[in-house]
């Protein structure tokens, strides 16, 4: 049951105990089958775990969708330096709130995933980088970590197996860019969270130059289930290339917002209109952002697709973190796009000129349009700026800012023109 609404079409792998306060405690979690996968794994070779996860086809849930088992297999088989697992709990993509829900209801599910992931890549230390704003749920996770140490499930010689895995909870301090894996590593080294140039990739030279893997909270939360039941079992849900279930975070103009755990490939239109109850105003849907503010916006007529990585990519957007933002027909897209671009302008780390300048100027132009002072030439300028922001920077923040601009101008040009014809519209969409 996902939270705070449920639907019979959900597959409750990760979210079965959302809304069940007892499941938070170690005792409650163990009564629900917790840490059996960890006990099982301690009798397995790390390579076997990587193999199971590969077989499952699990893909990274943080946005990029890279196959997790393959990512793990890039780590050296025979460590010559310490290995590190970094759990990315810096969830800050606008529209995304699944990791917070996973942590606040099932902290031990996340921790078991961290322990398994660390063991699989032969890391003795896993840092959980949680965003600074999540102070409240961080306290839940902190308590859970204390319980895990008290029970001997983490630390040195776990349950007498000779295996060492330490967990350290690390609080960020407010920077979207630290969710980017190399930005996160820099931040965890006590630096400004500026992304690094790749290569070298983290598996070669990551945290303090050591082999490192960074996985999203939701990705790791899947691992205990895969280890316990096997990779083949996981493939009973989803599609061939996007197996399993995914937490979709729904917000904006829907009657029942929240997290829903759906098998990948679930029909998108049915999801928004039936599972989430459609729009509160009863007005038709106008636009949907399928994967968080960084991905191209889809128009309502493009929704007859499955919710999986390939189908959404074929429609010209991305599944991203599964963050579905719905806008009804009464919305003019200019204010939301302006707000998203302002976000990127605020969060740009400033290393790369196309991003630092591009996001700031695009935000300025969009504010001007919203004030009713824009011209049609501004749209071409925005498209030119966006083109210069795409594929020319160290990380993809700049591309992310361009995505809503380009897609909204292409699909909802009329919304921009409305501001140019009727300056009095300014602010109406906010």
């Amino acid at each position: 049951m996902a939270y705070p609404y449920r639907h019979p079409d959900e597959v409750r792998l990760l979210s079965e105990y959302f809304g069940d306060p007892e499941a938070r405690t170690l005792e409650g979690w163990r009564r629900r089958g917790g840490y059996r996968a960890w006990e099982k794994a301690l009798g397995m070779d790390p390579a076997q775990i990587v193999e199971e996860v590969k077989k499952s086809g699990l893909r990274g849930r943080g946005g990029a969708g890279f196959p997790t088992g393959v990512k793990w297999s890039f780590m050296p088989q025979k460590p010559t330096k310490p290995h590190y697992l970094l759990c990315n709990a810096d969830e800050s993509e606008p529209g995304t709130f699944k990791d917070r829900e996973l942590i606040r209801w099932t902290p031990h599910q996340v921790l078991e995933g961290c322990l398994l992931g660390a063991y699989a890549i032969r890391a003795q230390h896993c840092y959980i980088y949680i965003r600074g704003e999540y102070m409240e749920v961080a306290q839940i996770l902190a308590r859970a970590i204390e319980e895990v140490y008290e029970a001997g499930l983490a630390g040195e010689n776990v349950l007498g197996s000779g295996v060492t895995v330490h967990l350290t909870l690390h609080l960020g301090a407010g920077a979207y860019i630290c969710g980017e894996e190399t930005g996160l590593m820099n931040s965890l080294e006590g630096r400004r969270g500026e992304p690094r140039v790749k290569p070298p990739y983290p598996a070669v030279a990551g945290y303090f130059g050591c082999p490192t893997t960074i996985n999203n909270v939701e990705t790791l939360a899947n691992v205990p289930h895969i280890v316990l039941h096997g990779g083949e079992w996981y493939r009973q849900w989803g599609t061939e290339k996007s197996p399993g279930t995914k937490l979709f975070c729904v917000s904006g103009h829907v009657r029942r917002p929240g997290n829903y755990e759906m098998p990948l490939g679930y029909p998108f239109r049915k999801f928004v209109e039936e599972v989430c109850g459609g729009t509160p105003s009863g007005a038709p849907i106008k636009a949907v952002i399928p994967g968080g503010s960084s991905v191209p916006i889809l128009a309502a007529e493009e929704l007859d697709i499955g919710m999986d990585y390939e189908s959404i990519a074929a429609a010209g957007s991305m599944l991203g973190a599964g963050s579905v933002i719905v806008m009804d027909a009464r919305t003019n897209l200019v204010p939301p796009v302006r707000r998203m671009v302002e976000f990127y302008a605020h969060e740009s780390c400033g290393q790369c000129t196309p991003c630092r300048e591009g996001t700031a100027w695009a935000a300025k132009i969009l504010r001007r349009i919203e004030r009713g002072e824009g011209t049609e030439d501004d749209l071409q300028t925005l498209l030119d700026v966006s083109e210069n922001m795409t594929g020319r920077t160290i990380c993809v923040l700049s591309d992310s800012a361009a995505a809503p601009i380009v897609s909204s101008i292409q699909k909802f040009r009329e919304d921009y023109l409305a501001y140019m014809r009727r300056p009095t519209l300014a602010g109406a969409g906010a």
Partner: protein
Amino acid sequence: MSAEVPERRNPGFAGETGEFVHLTEEDIRGTAYAGVRSPDGGHPAVAGTVPFLRADTDPQAPLFDGPYRERLEKILRRYPDKQAALLPVLHLAHERRGYLSPETMAEVADVLGLSPAYVRGVATFYTMYNLRPVGRYLIQVCTNISCMLCGAYDVLRAFLEHTGTELGETSADGRFTVIEVECLGACGFPTAVQINDRYWESVRPEDVPTILASLR
């Protein structure tokens, strides 16, 4: 627009509970389970994560004495080198003093063997470190897309009206500073508001007086 919003199932400020009508605010926030963390940080694994936006701060407080010294030492043990402990140590300083003055940053630099300029360079990168004093309650209203679509600017305006402040300014009595914040990650529970170290979710403009009254 409010006429079209569904009725609230379980009023409270831990978010709309939807079909989970039996849940209390405490159940959702997990405060009893999490407990209150001690100044020494508890287990070293979590010593760096004590909430650092607090109402009871003292700009003159010593940084690394008693339990705070213990916490510093626990934090240092968890990282490969001292520099890596910079964020948690800045959190500790922020928790005690309420903001990071140049003097505070210099003290942190000293204890970690870094230069004050380096620490300042890092501290200014992150938005959650206040570089100047703020009100006893720092009210951060999320106005990013999901909250915005559901009326966040009305909530922001209500906070400004009821506290009698301008955006980013501190009220005359020193109690409140109201700012806009980027996505708080509670998009399904709009509008999300963070006041010091706690979240208030599903906030509507009419809730603002009640929330402010609870802070007094």
